[in-house]
């Protein structure tokens, strides 16, 4: 389990751990019984089989218990998911555009970058648009992923909890250089971010070619 760096990493990891523990327990149980029966009732030792046609109580038992377990899993998954979808009203908005095979990020004042810079502990809403084919923005450390699809405006959001630099990958196959559609999200302290933002915006206003505002 690798450490998460966003507010909902805990909910995702918790659900994962919950299902993992149940799964391992079930797998061990199934495998153990299989091996145990194969040894204990091996034809060499156990020549005469006993015909047991079934047992209703057992069938009910192993229908009801899995049902309860999967419903619990479902609820746990939904609980974490709600957090991923409920974007705070005051979130800072960045528009993400995907195109073969690069990302670009447009800030509210029109500033465009190819690396995502965000302040720590601040909700950031990403509006996702695609200029050509399907892509998917994937930030493993934040447990965030949402497809970027032409003719649709999907969204996702996150709130980073740790300062640092994290990978952004494209998770939806998009052709030749799909595997190289990587960039970074840089999480900075509030002050550092403001400073960066002011400088970068000033540079933009000075007229960097690709960052002209319309």
């Amino acid at each position, binding site marked *: 389990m*690798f450490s998460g760096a966003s507010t909902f990493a805990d909910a995702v990891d918790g659900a994962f751990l919950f299902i993992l523990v149940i799964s391992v327990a079930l797998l061990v149980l*199934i495998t153990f019984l*299989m091996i145990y029966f*194969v040894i204990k009732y091996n034809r060499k030792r156990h020549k005469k*089989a006993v015909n047991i046609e079934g*047992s209703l109580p057992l069938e009910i038992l192993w229908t009801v218990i899995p049902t309860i377990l999967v419903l619990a*899993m479902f609820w746990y998954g*939904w609980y974490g998911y709600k957090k991923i979808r409920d974007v705070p009203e005051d979130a800072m908005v960045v528009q993400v555009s995907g195109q073969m095979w690069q990302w670009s990020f447009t800030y509210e004042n029109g500033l465009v970058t190819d690396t995502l810079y965000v302040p720590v502990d601040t909700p950031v809403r990403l509006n996702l648009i695609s200029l050509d084919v399907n892509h998917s923005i*994937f930030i493993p450390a934040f447990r965030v992923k949402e497809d970027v699809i032409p*003719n649709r405006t999907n969204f996702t959001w996150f709130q980073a909890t740790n300062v640092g630099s994290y990978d952004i990958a494209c998770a939806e196959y998009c052709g030749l250089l799909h595997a190289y559609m990587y960039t970074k999200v840089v999480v900075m302290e509030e002050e550092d971010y403001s400073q960066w933002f002011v400088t970068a915006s000033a540079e933009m206003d000075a007229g960097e070619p690709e960052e002209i505002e319309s």
Partner: protein
Amino acid sequence: MANGTLYMPETEPNYLDYRGRFKGILGWILSTDHKRIGLLYLYSMGLFLTVGIFFGFMMRLELIAPGKVIIEPQTYNSFFTLHGIIMIFLFIIPGLPAVFGNFFLPILIGAKDVAFPRINLLSWWLFAIGGGLAITSVFLPGGPADTGWTFYVPYSIRSTTNVLPAAFAAFILGFSSILTGINFVTTIHRLRAPGMDWFKMPLFIWSLYATAWIQVLATPIIGITLLLVAVERLFGIGLFDPALGGDPVLFQHLFWIYSHPAVYIMILPAMGVISEIIPVFARRTIFGYSFIAFSSLAIAFFGSLVWAHHMFTAGMSDTGRFVFSLLTFLVAIPSAIKVFNWIATLYKGSIQLAPPMLYALGFIFLFSIGGLTGLMQGALSINIHIHDTSFIVGHFHYVMFGGTGFGIFAALHYWLPKMYGRMYNEKRAKVGFWVLITGFNLLYFPMLVMGWLGMPRRYYDYLPEFHVYHFISTIGSWILITGLLIMAVNLILGVRRGAKATDNPWGGETLEWRIQTPPTHENFHEIPVITGGPYEYKINENGQEEKKYEEVT
């Protein structure tokens, strides 16, 4: 079941020697005998499987280290596309129904053939043509398709590669699958031997019945969807293309309306095979017959309602995601019921760990891992993180290869002596199994781990932190292929030179073990009258072993 043998010894030639209207190869490719058609599928599938393995092997080799190792990105993208198309449409979907369903469905219900023998032959021809087209598209100008087997728009509309032949191939193969489904449903309704009511049918038949319904009711959707992609490419008609206002997500809906149930077309018959094998080698009746039978129908039904869990990150509405996640979890229940009943069947049996049984138990182990990792993806929050990562790749190989693949291998080891009248080397078969399962886990388990760590799928290259997992995985692929080779060589040697198999080498109780080995052209001299259930083991009560094969003189 009926007592005694059901043929007149030495009066009729077996189906392999039988001389119909045509001789030689024509006697095969124009034969309407369900057994010969089953073997036609077996051979053609073996061929396609080899090609599919080649592509998989090359991909794994490329991924042994970061950066370019042997092939270019474009080649790699084509390879995973072809690997997917071939393995899914040409190997796993037809695998059990078309080979073993064709061969044993009529025999197991006491019939002489399927309901529509000529349509059955047509299915194989369509299969061969579709497969041929898929393979040919590789060599046509433009290069092999590079869209992934999912053909997602708009990439599949924009790609300049041979998407058209690949989509047409899948369309034709879909037709082949539909015709098989129609044939099986009608056969099961109409041609059961007297006395074989629904609850005296072997469980393999139940699984084939459920499968056939999915084939009939879901396959047309993929047919029309891929046809529309073709039409869009050919005539520029606006249907899915976002440039013309279309919605790419709608394509994904339609694609998965078929392709998710298709997963159950793949796995259900394998579950049926396991339900046949376990009672035979535990020498006792199956535990909870009707629960296993009905869980097949339940899986077929619920399985048709969960397609959109392939699209949890595609931007569906929250309601949509809620509904599909909930339904997805419900599918787990009938699958769990099956596993528990199989385990319970081992209890107080008299277990013989012959190769088919070994493969069946291997199936349960690997399928359980596949199923349990499926639960993780059903949970929405986890799905968001692991969607489109190698976790998914690992998961579906556990289900499709560890499940269906091992089901096919189990069926091969179980039924091949009946089909060819010869026995393979059992010791070598077991060695093959252990090599195979070791390689399998080395190959696919690392994928689960690195998927959780954030390794996306369909990647030609990767970050250095994933190197160790990819390296282990590639080593695993070599061991896996060694295991496959041991198995294949052993089976082929067995078929060609093995000791003669008796009529009932495993001591089974279902009808196929009551007829001649190999079966006669007509299967039964006289249609049997069925009196008991399929797994009533009485012969073992004196504790004696069945004679497996006669020494070759």
